[in-house]
């Protein structure tokens, strides 16, 4: 597996997304020479993002301009990605750690006959194969897996890899010929998009800091205390199921077994007891901090740092302190 590596570019606010940049740095650590790094981006207006690939050392970019891709199911995108991989003679496809990355992998496993893995936090070469590590069981275990064969496709876990340093090259940008898409795949229609239901800050999946509140906040109005702390930290806001069940915040906030899984650099649990169904959604966070009035709450067993105290006193003080040091 030393052949070209195809990096699937996801665009956010007109730029390559953070997870895509992380995929580029993984490709660089595996690939060596710039000539082995190939980008892919979809969209009729993708020249500037294609150029952005060049800034990070990707020397060749394939562009899928098919306008139907804007609102087609991911299956259609997977066809173009497989076509680009074939054009590039790629042996490896890397996608950032987003919903898109995961949803592509099953398709690529079949269509491109690839060994695949999702949620990958480490990658290394193992002779002719690749060896990956990935958290499983909600971060309660880590597996090492060997991926064999001529084709491997990986979806990474967000925040597991550094952003790449600049290594500018002048990329060759080429349009992919259009690929016939099965009519059945184009019948479903995207009728709209909604920006993050989680409010104005970063979304749960992306954020490097998450502040979550639990039943300890007591009312929907009090939940603002949690949101103010999150705003001061530039964090996303999460919640335990007690909060979403009570209707204090919508279910899109829920972290845990039946909500979202997050793995930020910092997870702050406020007034959350630490039930296993909550823990499995956040245990793979790098640093966990708990604020809870009950010193015997199970959350303190998994947290790195804890404050035993009344959240109604601690949280406002913390928000003020964060604002002070960040001079907001």
């Amino acid at each position, binding site marked *: 597996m030393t052949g070209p590596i195809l990096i699937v570019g996801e665009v956010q606010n007109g730029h390559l997304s953070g997870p895509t940049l992380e995929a580029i740095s993984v490709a660089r650590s595996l690939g060596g020479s710039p000539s082995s790094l190939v980008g892919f981006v979809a969209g009729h207006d993708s020249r500037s993002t294609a150029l952005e690939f060049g800034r990070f050392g990707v020397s060749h970019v394939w562009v899928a301009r098919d306008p139907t891709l804007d609102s087609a199911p991911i299956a259609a995108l997977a066809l173009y990605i497989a076509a680009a991989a074939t054009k590039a003679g790629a042996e490896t496809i890397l996608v950032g750690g987003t919903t898109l990355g995961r949803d592509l992998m099953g398709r690529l496993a079949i269509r491109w006959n690839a*060994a*695949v893995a999702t949620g990958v936090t480490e990658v290394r070469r193992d002779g002719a194969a690749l060896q990956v590590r990935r958290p499983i*069981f909600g971060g309660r275990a880590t597996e090492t897996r*060997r991926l064999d064969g001529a084709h491997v496709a990986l979806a990474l876990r967000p925040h597991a890899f550094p952003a790449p340093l600049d290594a500018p090259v002048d990329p060759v940008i080429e349009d992919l010929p259009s690929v016939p898409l099965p009519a059945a795949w184009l*019948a479903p229609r995207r009728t709209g998009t909604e920006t993050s*239901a989680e409010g104005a800050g970063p979304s749960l999946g992306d954020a490097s800091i998450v502040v979550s509140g639990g039943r300890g906040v007591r009312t929907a109005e009090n939940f603002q205390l949690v949101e103010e702390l999150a705003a001061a930290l530039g964090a996303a806001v999460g919640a335990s199921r007690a909060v*979403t069940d009570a209707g204090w915040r919508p279910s899109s906030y829920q972290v845990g077994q039946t909500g979202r899984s997050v793995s930020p650099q910092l997870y702050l649990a406020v007034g959350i007891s630490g039930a296993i169904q909550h823990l499995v959604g956040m245990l793979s966070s790098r640093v966990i901090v708990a604020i809870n009035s009950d010193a015997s709450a199970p959350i303190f067993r998994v947290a790195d740092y804890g404050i035993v105290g009344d959240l109604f006193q601690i949280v406002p003080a913390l928000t003020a302190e964060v604002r002070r040091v960040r001079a907001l």
Partner: protein
Amino acid sequence: MEIVVCIKPVPEAETRLRVAPGGATLDAEGVKFVLAGYDESALEQALLLKEALAGSKVHAISFGPAPRTEEVLRAAVALGADLATWVESPSGSAVDPIQVARALAGAIAAIPHDLVLCGKQAGDDEAGLVPSALGELLALPDFGSVVDLRWDPVTARFKFLRSTDAGGERWEAATPCVIGLQQAWNDPRTAKLPNILKSRKAAIAKHPAGPDLPGARSEPQGFELPAPRTGARLIEYKSPQEAAQTLVRILREEAKVFP
């Protein structure tokens, strides 16, 4: 509507994880297996659709070894599934999620399916690979991370929200399609005792996984449990302000999680 729900037997959430001899997988000895969390919600969603659409059937399908696979299928029947199919896992060999998808696709292709409902990812391997692989194998569109799934009888289409990193996408799709559900709040029902008793005698169709199943393309080599967390370092303080200052200093200087 013919609704197929894919159910994976996974260790119950409270399971104490142990490493199997050999070091590459979970030690399943003595572990209780249950419906994966999202699958429970997917089954609930299927039952809600069935209740809303007269003449519908819910068909639970599961791939895996005895006895756990049969057990979760009986649990699904007790909850209200009309039919159950057990896709028998070839014994002994390790399987990867793509092989699971191939085996399931073989069985699903042989039964009526207007909607194939999966969980968006299973709580054990967290792969999230089966729904999109099923879409490719069955030549159907698939949608992952779906919440708020409804059937619109007027347009004869599903309407739903795909939860994405940037927020959400509203979609409409006709049957047949594959949906990976990320439903957090539909509060799965619990089975009533008479139904549990009845489910013990329910017929479970068996489907062989197929001798021509291609080999696994990925293989587990290690299963590691993190060093037990030693418990939080508790911050001592005399005032909330002092607690806040200490924590912020630690997070910046020691843990280096924000500038």
